[in-house]
């Protein structure tokens, strides 16, 4: 038995050291936008004016550096309200923002994320309000280890976690020379529409509206103003979404907006004919994002003052 155990240890010890080292390196080299966003948030938590929550619409659309005041963004690619609510619960305990910008895109209301998503973006490692039990594993490191080499930090995010230079494969509009006829027939449009249509579920929308209400209540309780923002989308997307008759958002806004503590800024059609400002039908590119953030900043200034 001694011989067996000692030989087993010859295998287990180096493998254990390798895995522990990889885990430490992975946690230190986390290149996700949420890691960088959280770093910024923690460094500035005592002096923050505003927080941004939402999906890639908000992440790609709003660049906090062009907003007056100190704003941290938690907008996250692929996010949904169930995720945002958990992050919001954490953020409101750590900071005292004056306002919150919350995604109000129509199709955002149909999003819902499962534990797989939560694991893939490593949320429980940063936000105690997202339960670690929702993870399917306890460690960042998973085999095969070759996926972590070369060890590099991140794409070129700015300090707010915004990514000015997006990967080439995302930039569908540039690839299609910003032409409607080509965009319309591109397979990704079909895939996007199928995805959006397939995701529509009345129960999830209802859950999301409930989450809106909870965020709203908690903001009002803490005297935080809440601004629902729908970022600009391209007209092809707007027309498709119009056809889906997702009317819950408008009804909800009519119910809650008081233009004193709760606002709704709808920019769906702001740039809808200007393809040069988008990288695909529902996301602004860097230039579009700078332009839009400046417009938003001006509107926010008038609202908040």
């Amino acid at each position, binding site marked *: 038995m001694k011989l*067996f155990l000692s030989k*087993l240890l010859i295998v287990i010890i180096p493998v254990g050291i390798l895995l522990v080292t990889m885990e430490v390196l992975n946690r230190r080299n986390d290149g996700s936008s949420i890691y960088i966003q959280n770093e910024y948030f923690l460094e500035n938590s005592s002096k923050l004016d505003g927080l941004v929550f939402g999906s890639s619409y908000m992440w790609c659309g709003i660049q906090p550096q062009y907003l007056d005041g100190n704003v941290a963004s938690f907008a996250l690619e692929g996010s949904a309200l169930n995720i945002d609510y958990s992050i919001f619960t954490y953020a409101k305990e750590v900071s005292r923002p004056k306002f919150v910008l919350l995604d109000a895109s129509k199709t955002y209301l149909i999003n819902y994320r499962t534990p797989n998503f939560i694991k893939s973006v490593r949320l429980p490692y940063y936000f105690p309000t997202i339960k670690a039990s929702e993870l399917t*594993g306890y460690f960042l490191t998973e*085999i*095969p280890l*070759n996926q972590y080499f070369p060890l590099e930090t991140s794409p070129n995010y700015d300090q707010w976690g915004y990514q000015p230079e997006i990967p080439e494969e995302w930039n569908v509009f540039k690839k299609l020379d910003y032409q409607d006829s080509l965009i319309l027939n591109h397979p990704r449009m079909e895939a996007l529409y199928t995805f959006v249509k397939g995701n529509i579920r009345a129960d999830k929308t209802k859950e999301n509206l409930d989450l809106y209400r909870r965020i709203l209540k908690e903001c009002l309780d803490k005297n935080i103003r809440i601004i629902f923002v729908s970022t600009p989308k391209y007209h092809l997307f707007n027309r498709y979404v119009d056809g889906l008759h997702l009317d819950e958002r408008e009804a909800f806004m009519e119910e809650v907006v008081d233009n004193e503590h709760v606002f709704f800024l709808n920019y769906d059609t702001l740039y809808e004919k200007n393809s040069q400002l988008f990288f695909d039908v529902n996301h602004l590119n860097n230039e579009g994002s700078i332009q839009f953030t400046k417009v938003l900043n001006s509107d926010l200034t008038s609202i908040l003052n």
Partner: protein
Amino acid sequence: MSFTTLDFAVFISIVFLLYWFLFNSLKRQNTLILIASYVFYGWWDWKFLSLIIISSLVDYLIGMGLGRTKHNLKRKMLLYSSLATNLGILFLFKYFDFFLDAFKVLFSIQSTPFQAIDVVLPVGISFYTLQTLSYTIDVYNKKIKPHHDIVSFFAFVSFFPQLVAGPIERAANLLPQFGKERVFSYEKAADGMRQILWGLFKKLFVANHCAIFVTEVFTSFGDQQGSTLFIAAIAFTIQVYCDFSGYSDMAIGLGRILGFNLTKNFDYPLFSRDISELWNKWHITLISWFRDYVYIPLGGSRKGKIRKLLHILAIFTLSGLWHGAHLTFVLWGVLHGIAFLLHIIWRERRPRGQVARNGFLPSCVEVFQMIRTFLIFAVINIIFRIDTFDDGLNFILEMFSLSFFSVPYLPDPALGVGCIILFSVEWLQRNKNHGLEMNSQKTKGTIRWSIYFSLILLILFFSAPGSQFFYFQF
């Protein structure tokens, strides 16, 4: 809890230490195995533990009853009670919805007094049902005596290394091992570890790489070239082999570490020279179960050639249905049965002994025979992976269309490396019990350790992200 998870690594380490250091009497070890097996199974869903307990209790009591009575009718009634309970549970959880749908389609009716129960299939139910049934049938046939020790009987039914995906053990082989003093053997445990390592390599490296490619091609087979479909069909058979035989290797290895000898489940079937040889080497414990408990009781080959062929077709169909409550599985079984029958009808001279028994390399005839057998097997297996019969037919038609001669879309090169290692090692070891069986005295330590670390590093650095074991769905 799956063998390839960190949870299991922690679990088996605790069980191993308790088993050999603290629970060092036979009774305590059997109790520990029983508790560990229930924890292992309960990790998936503790609610389904009740099914194993019911199954174990019924067969334990019926076994005792069979031992007490000599009255034929009573014995028969007891046997039927066991069959009704075990097959009833299996039917309810696995086949009820399938037969309900089939009934509706067959009689063109919209509704029946019964509703579909739409319940999750309890993991391993098909495996442990056959295992526990074999005990009752053997006791009924007086091949074995009823087992009196309730703890070891329950541990036999739920023995965690082979509980969820086999090998399907016979009571005659496994139960007596629960009654014998188990002494730790270094050679046995080291060999078990080697077999586990080989199983891990087959699953995590080869099967998982195959799974990625196969999933990609099979889900979009309408857009793929025939040549790509052909490679995917081959990759799928390699995936199933490595996934399932990898699991069996791990199960047998774990058994050896705990002092048990489990039955070999795969005997290098991909080197078979004809269909009959392949089915003697593929999922051995299932095929032999159907042979002993279905084929032979039906009359086997004793009732004329036509009946023999029908009996063979029946067990292949049943084997297909055992795999899953879906028409494609039934069809898969029927097609393999037909291939087997054709082989019997036009039987050429049956190959004897191991392949290439006179040398290192096979003869040209043997190479041809092996490729032919593998291809027949791989083409029929398409139906095992595809969703509907129509899709299967379209897949095969597209595969053998003119686009068969086009340049294929190739999988990750790591899959090629994995297959080269797999086939080389298994070819070299084809007369041994498993791919890494070696004699510590004859093989130099440096070579052995180089092999271990090479495989471990390959698994750690270049395996593919995990998919669940393929046979867990059955």
